[in-house]
């Protein structure tokens, strides 16, 4: 199959799974903001990681050059995706791996579940994976009578606490150490009742809890951070060693990976393995990275499967203004610097992907019309901190604005009469299309001053503009416009007249 499009264009097919939010972001954010403990925890954690990231990024004189290479590599991958996927499949298969393709969440879940059942087991150990979170694999396996044990410490905290992840790297970021201790004491069998909240001891309790599982598991399920097309190699980046345990000890390994995770080849790892650890945990390198290429005789799993997942990725790819969201390497730097995320936390976003990247990726995967997902692109002040922090330079603010436009356009079709927003925008279009129009409008400024009254504040605007004045006042407008003032106060000097020409 070539990259040149020959057939009829098909409509985008959107994704499913833990991506559809059932409550608009403002309502969810309002509720979450009431949780002061969570806000304190998040503030502490995000500020810790910001400082660490800045320190290790500052050590590299070529950080910007690495970002440029990372962004260009991902753009190249997306433009050549069919050829790279074919190349990867050929190499992975030649080395004994087996590839499965899944159009959506449900198909991926069924494939994984069937593969597990083939091994005559009802237990699997899991390495933290966003893709399996997205498709709701654990819930599906539970329905099938299969227990999935999360082995990443933060995932374990979430699973034991019957909670939901609130961050893509540290899913339990909303819990502090004493809350973690309480969860362990309540939910972890055979835990030492004298367990304190010292993080080192909490980590050791998790080690004790999971060790037997690791040593006896027959099947492991993982995600993947990167896949190298020219060799068929997969990579998992982790810290604790739970990844190594899952990728090394069981006989069967099932990896679920989005189709956008490809890199052309080994050379690209030199860029991404500098960008990712420094952006995510603020370390020069994460403690452990595992790379495997199909099956290696006598070393590690001998049944190696890979599920290649679409689930809306092709729909995101079809949006030429939004497709760079697929360049995301799931580092979480954008949420760690986001003033909105820091205050609302990840649960307010309602999707597997929270924070700035989630606010664009979620509606791109599901389509802007899906349930309440259209509220996500507004979950931002457009300050741009996420764009600055992104190691692959995804212009998140620009895509947020693009998706807001999609939202407005999609709703316009539903109503016969123009909305207040439409009328205001029409008015603005007229006003800003010519200096004369604007000058005419500015003559009305004294009226605004009149409306403001004696305390020189406008406290209530009509219609949809009331949303603005509900939580703030507008100062009274001046009696004359800037341009009128300029005309009166500055007799044009020769130089400025020259410039104006």
């Amino acid at each position, binding site marked *: *199959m070539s990259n040149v499009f020959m057939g009829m264009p098909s409509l985008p097919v959107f994704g499913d799974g833990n991506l559809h939010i059932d409550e608009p972001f403002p309502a969810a954010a309002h509720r979450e903001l009431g949780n002061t403990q969570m806000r304190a925890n998040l503030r502490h954690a995000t500020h810790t990681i910001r400082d660490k990231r800045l320190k290790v990024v500052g050590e590299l004189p070529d950080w910007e050059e690495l970002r440029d290479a990372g962004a260009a590599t991902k753009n190249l991958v997306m433009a050549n995706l069919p050829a790279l996927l074919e190349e990867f499949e050929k190499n992975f298969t030649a080395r004994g791996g087996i590839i499965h393709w899944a159009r959506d969440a449900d198909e991926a879940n069924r494939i994984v579940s069937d593969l597990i059942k083939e091994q005559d087991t009802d237990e699997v150990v899991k390495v933290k994976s966003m893709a399996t979170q997205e498709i709701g694999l654990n819930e599906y396996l539970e329905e099938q009578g299969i227990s999935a044990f999360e082995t990443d410490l933060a995932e374990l905290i979430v699973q034991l606490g019957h909670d939901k992840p609130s961050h893509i790297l540290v899913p339990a970021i909303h819990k502090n150490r004493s809350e973690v201790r309480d969860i362990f004491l309540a939910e972890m069998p055979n835990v030492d009742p004298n367990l304190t909240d010292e993080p*080192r001891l909490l980590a050791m309790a998790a080690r004790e809890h999971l060790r037997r599982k690791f040593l006896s598991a027959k099947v492991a399920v993982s995600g993947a951070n990167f896949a190298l097309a020219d060799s068929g190699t997969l990579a998992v980046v982790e810290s604790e060693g739970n990844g190594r345990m899952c990728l090394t000890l069981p006989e069967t390994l099932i990896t679920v990976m989005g189709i956008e995770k490809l890199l052309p080849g080994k050379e690209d790892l030199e860029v991404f393995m500098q960008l990712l650890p420094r952006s995510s945990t603020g370390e020069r390198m994460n403690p452990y990275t595992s790379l495997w290429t199909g099956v290696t005789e006598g070393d590690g799993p001998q049944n190696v499967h890979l599920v290649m997942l679409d689930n809306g990725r092709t729909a995101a790819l079809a949006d030429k203004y939004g497709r760079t969201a697929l360049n995301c390497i799931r580092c979480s730097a954008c949420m760690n610097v986001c003033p909105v995320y820091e205050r609302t936390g990840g649960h307010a976003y309602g999707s597997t992907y929270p924070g700035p990247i989630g606010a664009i990726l979620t509606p791109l995967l599901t389509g802007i019309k899906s349930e309440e997902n259209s509220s996500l692109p507004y979950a931002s002040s457009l300050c741009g901190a996420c764009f600055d922090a992104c190691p692959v330079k995804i212009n998140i603010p620009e895509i947020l604005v693009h998706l807001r436009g999609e939202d407005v356009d999609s709703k316009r079709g539903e109503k016969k009469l123009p909305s207040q927003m439409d009328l205001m925008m029409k008015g603005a279009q007229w006003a800003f299309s010519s200096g004369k129009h604007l000058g005419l409008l500015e003559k009305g400024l004294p009226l605004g001053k009149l409306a403001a009254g004696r305390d020189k504040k406008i406290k209530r605007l009509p219609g949809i503009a009331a949303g603005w004045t509900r939580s703030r006042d507008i100062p009274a407008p001046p009696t004359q416009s800037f341009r009128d003032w300029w005309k009166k106060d500055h007799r044009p000097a020769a130089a400025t007249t020259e410039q104006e020409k």
Partner: protein
Amino acid sequence: MSAKEEILSRITSALRDAPTPEPIPREYRTTSDMPLAELIELLVDRLEDYKAHVDVVDSAQLSATIADRLKDATSFVVPHGIDETWLADATPDGDARRRTDAPGAVLGIPELDSTDAVLTSSAVSIAESGTIVLDGTPDQGRRAISLVPDHHVCVVPASTIVRLLPEALPRMDITRPLTWISGPSATSDIELERVEGVHGPRRLDVIIVKGL
């Protein structure tokens, strides 16, 4: 249509505007001329920052250093391709503590779990990030042996140290099972503060050998 055909057709349809991305600019550092003494110093600094214990020794001292690092272990595993001269001091006259993992004579998981330590060599190390790469060749062994025991003693020949990741990748055979190790097992999952010691070896001793 199979799932694969359908997904590939969706991609092709999604790319019908035929985006033409710019070539990848590789303006970042790919070479370095840092002298060996400074490379060693940088690697030591990074590894100690990760709470690994580091010795820098001449090749003549290697065997004694290994013996010292393993002195508290009641048992340890070595891969079958380990340089026997390294073990001269650690296992005089066939030390009963030693277990050898070899193709056709592999140690089971319970055996590895009851083994205190592991001794391996390494393939290449990156000074700037404090990363040691194991590639499963006979002096490093299969992945399980350097994972299950709680204490890893890792030999880094000075000739295998480079400064930058782009200098290290050409030295790796990417299709071998690779493990990149940067310090002992750790987590940042509680309040994003790093603590050492979870599932992987909690103790990492690195021996950098000059002249090797």
